[in-house]
Structures are given as structure tokens and as C-alpha cells.
């Protein structure tokens, strides 16, 4: 028996996130464990009059390539992949691992070489996405492996995931439309601020954001979603921050990260566990010590840390400040091979000031945001 929530998630993705239209070519990417959602998406796309096809991988194949492949095989991009990417109007990525640690023992250098080669393809994909030629949304289909990372049973994790996507109730699209309106209002309001000051346990950080654009993450590119974010001014971060949740990068965890910033750059960093890894990532390149993102997590259906950035960065009442590359569409100028989202829990005693005025306390914005629909997005529905 199909879980009605899977069907609603599929409909939400095609109708709301991708706004899939008749005649559009849509590819559904997944691993085999995501098959139930793949099939529902396929059905939803057929009903929308689109041309869906599936691109389903099999667990275990990446390991084989990374273990056995020659240099040439690791770096190979097939003409099939290149030809396809130009022809897509829409793309859904379903993360659905059967073992989240399958690549833990792979030689990091070989892995990096493979990722670097694949990046050429993903760069082209992002070019088409930012050019408005391709719509994309990433989501997750619950598996035992992801549940295990979150320290939950599969049934509990399914409840968690589907509630976060708001597909446990009828008409999730109206929910997300309302979220979109709210987040766009917040973004507009924050757009007027010159500086944010974040105060919490062992945290007092000033982040310059003048002239930068705040963006609402309202379920178009990720499902679930729920954050507003920008890229801060590269030279104006001052003070210190303590990240309460483990910072995860490429499946490796660093615990209790503390950073001190001067003139925008990290000048002191330490971690209770994984300090060497933290230092090596900070030394990756010149941009790795600079913030590329500051964001408010505003999805209050996500109430706990689950070791998956798709959810963790949206936990209602948290902020995340990412080291590394910024977002050009937000005005960010920092470039780096790194983009490491680190999450700071402000639900207990956090405060945020915008230009000296208290706007956020204990994980909530204080005043109702300006109810102003900014430009595109909601209106198009």
C-alpha cells in the first residue's frame, strides 16, 4: 500500500517546487531505495502532461568505481551525460542512501579526483538552473540508513521527514505558499539591515550585511525548506561564535567548533573533536576562512539535529553561518572550494540584533515581518 504522504510529496514537487508544465522534459534521479517516490513522481509528471524519465542508480556501484577505477575512469564523463543535461527542463534529485558511510574508507584523493571531474557537469547544470532554463529540486526519501544517522526508527524518521515537508496534511502547496509569503517578507525586512549581532552562549558576533540581498528558501530548490539567507560582507565579520551542533563536512564530524573572526577572517579556531580536520579545511584556500552565508533556520517542524544538512540547516530557531563560497545572487563575492554549513542553536538563550534593535529572541523573530510580496515567486502560482 502506497503511503499517501509519498504521493503528496510527489505532487508538491511537481506542482509547487518545479511548477512542471505540459511538454517539459523532467528527469528523476535517485538510488534504488527511492523507488516508491520515483514512481509517484513519474505518475505526477505523466498527469501533468510532462515527459518524465528516470535515472536510478544502484548502491555499491560508486564504491566499485572509486576502489577499482583507473585515473581515466575516475575522471570520465560520458557524452550521454553531457547531451542529456542540455535537454532537461526539470530535474529532481532524491537522496536515498542505503548506507551513508559506504565511502568512508575510500582514498580521499581518488574521491576528490572523481568529484572534481563531476563538478564540470554540475557547474553546467547550475549554469542552466541560475539562467532559469532548468528547474531543480532536491529532496530525500527516508531509508533506514538516514534514520540510523538521525538515531531514529524508520517509522519515526518517516514521520519526521514527511512532517518537515508538510505532506502529512492535505494541500501542502498552500502551506508552502504561505511559508513563501512569510519568508519573502522576512527577507525584505532583513534587506534593510546594515549589521546583525548574534548573541548566545560564548557567542557574540557582528556580521555586516549592508547592500546584500536576503533570499527566501521556500521549497523551490529543496524540500523540505525554510530559511532566509544572504552572503555577508567579506571583511566585516567580528567577534566569536560557538557552534552547538556538530559541524559535518563530507560525512566527517567536528564537534564543538569555536571561531574568532577579525576583519571578516577566522583568526582563531578550535574544536573539541576533529580539530585537525577543522584546521585543514580552514587552510583549503584563501576563501575558506571567510563567511559565505548567514541564514536563519525557520522550519519549526524540524526540531532536532539529524546529521543531514538538508534538514539541519532549516531547524527552526537556529542560525547557520557557512565558511567558504558565497552566493552571487545574494551579492556574495567570496570564492572557495569550501562551503561548510555550521549550525548554531539559538533556541534556548539566543538573541539577534539588527542595527542595534532586538529582532530575534529564543529562536523566534519578535515582530511580524513586513507582509510584502517581493517580486516573483508566489505571484506566479
Amino acid at each position, binding site marked *: 500500500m502506497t503511503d499517501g504522504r509519498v504521493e503528496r510529496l510527489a505532487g508538491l514537487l511537481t506542482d509547487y517546487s518545479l511548477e512542471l508544465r505540459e511538454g517539459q522534459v523532467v528527469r528523476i534521479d535517485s538510488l534504488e531505495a527511492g523507488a516508491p517516490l520515483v514512481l509517484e513522481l*513519474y505518475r505526477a509528471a*505523466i498527469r501533468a502532461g510532462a515527459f518524465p524519465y528516470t535515472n536510478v542508480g*544502484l548502491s555499491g556501484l560508486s564504491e566499485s568505481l572509486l576502489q577499482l577505477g583507473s585515473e581515466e575512469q575516475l575522471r570520465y564523463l*560520458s557524452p*550521454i551525460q553531457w547531451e*542529456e543535461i542540455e535537454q532537461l527542463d526539470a530535474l529532481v534529485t532524491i537522496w536515498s542512501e542505503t548506507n551513508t558511510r559506504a565511502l568512508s574508507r575510500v582514498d580521499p584523493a581518488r574521491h576528490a579526483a572523481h568529484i572534481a571531474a563531476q563538478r564540470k557537469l554540475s557547474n553546467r547544470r547550475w549554469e542552466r538552473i541560475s539562467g532559469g532554463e532548468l528547474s531543480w529540486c532536491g529532496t530525500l526519501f527516508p531509508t533506514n540508513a538516514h534514520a540510523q544517522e538521525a538515531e531514529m526508527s524508520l517509522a519515526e524518521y518517516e514521520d519526521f521527514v514527511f512532517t518537515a515537508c508538510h505532506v502529512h496534511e492535505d494541500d501542502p502547496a498552500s502551506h508552502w505558499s504561505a511559508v513563501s509569503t512569510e519568508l519573502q517578507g522576512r527577507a525584505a525586512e532583513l534587506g534593510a539591515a546594515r549589521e546583525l549581532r548574534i548573541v548566545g552562549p560564548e557567542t557574540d558576533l557582528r556580521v555586516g550585511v549592508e547592500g546584500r540581498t536576503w533570499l527566501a528558501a521556500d521549497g523551490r530548490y529543496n524540500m523540505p525548506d525554510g530559511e532566509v539567507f544572504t552572503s555577508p560582507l567579506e571583511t566585516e565579520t567580528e567577534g566569536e561564535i560557538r557552534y552547538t551542533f556538530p559541524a559535518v563536512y563530507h560525512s566527517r564530524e567536528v564537534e564543538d567548533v569555536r571561531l574568532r573572526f577579525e576583519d571578516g577572517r577566522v583568526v582563531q579556531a578550535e574544536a573539541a573533536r576533529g580539530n585537525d580536520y577543522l584546521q585543514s579545511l580552514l587552510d583549503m584556500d584563501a576563501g575558506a576562512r571567510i563567511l559565505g552565508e548567514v541564514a536563519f533556520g525557520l522550519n519549526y517542524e524540524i526540531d532536532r539535529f539529524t546529521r543531514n544538512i538538508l534538514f539541519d540547516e532549516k531547524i527552526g530557531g537556529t542560525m547557520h553561518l557557512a565558511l567558504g563560497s558565497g552566493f552571487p545572487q545574494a551579492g556574495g563575492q567570496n570564492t572557495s572550494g569550501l562551503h561548510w554549513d555550521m549550525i548554531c542553536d539559538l533556541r534556548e538563550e539566543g538573541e539577534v540584533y539588527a542595527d542595534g534593535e532586538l529582532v530575534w529572541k529564543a529562536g523566534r523573530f519578535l515582530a511580524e515581518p513586513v507582509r510584502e510580496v517581493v517580486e516573483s515567486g508566489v505571484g506566479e502560482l
Partner: protein
Amino acid sequence: MNSESRVGRLAGVLVDYSTRVAEGDLVCIDAGPAAAPLVRELWRRVLAAGGHPHLRLDVEGAQELLLREGSDVQLDWVSPLRRSEVERADVRIAIEADVNTRGNTAVHPERQARAERAREPLRRIHFARASAGELRAVVTLYPTAAAAQDADMSLSEYEEFVYRAGLLDREDPVGEWTALGRRFAELAEWLGGRKTIRVVGEGTDLTLGVEGRTWVPCDGRENFPDGEVFTGPVETAVNGTIRFSYPATYAGRRVGGVELEFRGGEVVRAEAEEGGAFLREMLALDDGARRAGEFSFGLNDAVAEFTGHALFDEKIGGTVHLALGASYPESGGRVQSALHWDLVCDLRSGSEVYADGELVYRDGRFIAGPL
């Protein structure tokens, strides 16, 4: 022998012998999810041979959904992925692994015919590239409970059957296939000079013109398992009646007790005890669907019993089969069609085959010629 090592042997024969994967080859593996153990083995062996494996894994239920709910334009559409695969692959390994061989029984035959027609251009590219030597393509089967069910066997009995049919229980499967290939080549050459083949059996008296056509030996490179020698009959020179002993399954539907009458190369009468409507729909698919694109002798003695799957049934030693629809260009056959449907006739008792009037085959065995 455990099942893992049999899968490994199958993968090894497919990569090293059937498709001869070489360094730099783009190898498309086309499979259903039930074939995952074989796909994983193939992946490793393709990498070891220096190839670049590429996977297209079906999603259970998607094709059925398209056939049930798709509009005409959706049925007519072919994904850019499929097109690129057919145009770009150096090697293609297709693995059948149905989890339900009858899932499409309730689909309207006309809609199924439409989806088949849409893929015709791809099939044409595939055959053209294969004939030109640009594409090495093999079709095989990974044993599933559904296929075992069609064969009236348990899964483990069916696995035994499948691996035995591929000679994978032998010490040196590649050596066996190579030796068989030589014998089939001799038979093909011996049949090559003939003008007519006449098949006589119970309810069957069919004469096929084969003058100027090439007989092609099948030694495990395009089908695995294999074992047949086939040609493409002269399109206007098939006359008489043939009754097929075995039911035939095509695109998830079964037709049984089929009797066809040919005149001037074309089917003029078609009857079936089971699935007659579907048979007629397929015959009406296009102009080529009413013609015999292939005639073949089944020569694999490790396949003795009917199991309801053409890949095996058409190889049964002592049978012949005739395909409605497309010819293989390498045989000289010129039938073009979106259809290629193999129908098998058991000749193991009370049957004879004449070549240019000479009795050459009786009760399932050649009594003249090199075999």
C-alpha cells in the same frame, strides 16, 4: 557452486566473451532492479576491462504507468537518455529481470503497439550500428521468481536451468561457446547455398525462400545463452501453414496455440487459442509485422524444455522459430517493423525439414550436413 560465483561467471562471459569490452568502451547496462547482483558484478568487470560502465535501471511500475495513463504524445516520446545510449554506446548489455511477466495484460493492445512504434527509430539505429560493427550488444536474462513461475519451476530449479543453458556449469564456458560457434558457422555455410526450406510437421507445412540470403551462426555474442542458426527469408516467398507448439509472450502478454497461414510472404490468416486480439493488434502494427523477418534452427541441447521465455525457447535443440516483423540486416532480410516476435515450433517428433527438396532434418536433428 554457490549462486554468487555463478553470477560472477555469467558476468565474466558477458564482458570478456560476448561483448569483448576493451579499454575506453562506453558500456551501457540496461536492467531491472531485480538484476542488481548481476549489475554489480558486471560493473566491476567492465571497470577491470578498462571500460566506462553506464547504468539504466528500470523502475518497477513506471512502464505500466506510462501505458495506462500516458497521452498519445507521451507514448510517442523517447527520452534523450535512451537516444544518447543507442547512439553513443560501444557496448550494450541488456538484462531481462521481470518481477511480473504479465503486468501489462490489461493494457489496451493499441496503446502498447503505439509505444512499440515510438521506439522503432531507436531499434533501427541499434541494428544499423550493430551490423556496422560499431555496437556490440548482448541480451541476457537474470533469473527471477516471475520467470521461474512461467517455466513452472521453483526459483532454484530455474537458476539451475538458466546457468546450465549458458554452459556456465562447464569447466570452460568460453571454450565451449567458441567450439559451438565453429560448428554453427559450418552449418550456416552448408545451408548458405540453398534456395528453399520446407518444414513439415503436425499442422505445419511451410515453404520459405532463402535464396541469396545469409545464414548467421549465433554463438553467445548477441544473445546469452545462445545456440541457433538463422536467416531472413525472401520477403515474398513464404507460403503455407505453421502451427506453433509453444505459447509466446511479448511485451508482458501471452498468446498461445498460434496458427499462421502465409501466402506470398504475408500472413493471410492468424488464429490463436489464447490472446487472439493481441496477436491481431501486433500483426496490424505496421506493414512489416505481417511478414517473417527471421527463420531459425534452435541448436542448444542444454535447453531441452519449454520455459515460456523466447530467449530460451527459441534455442531449444530440435525446434525452429519464425519471427514476425523486423529482419536482422546481417541475414540479408529486408523486413522493417517495430515488431520482432519469435514464435517457436517443436520439431522433435514427427517432423521433417527439406532443403531444396532433400530431406536434411528429422525429428529435431540434422541428418545431413556438418552437425
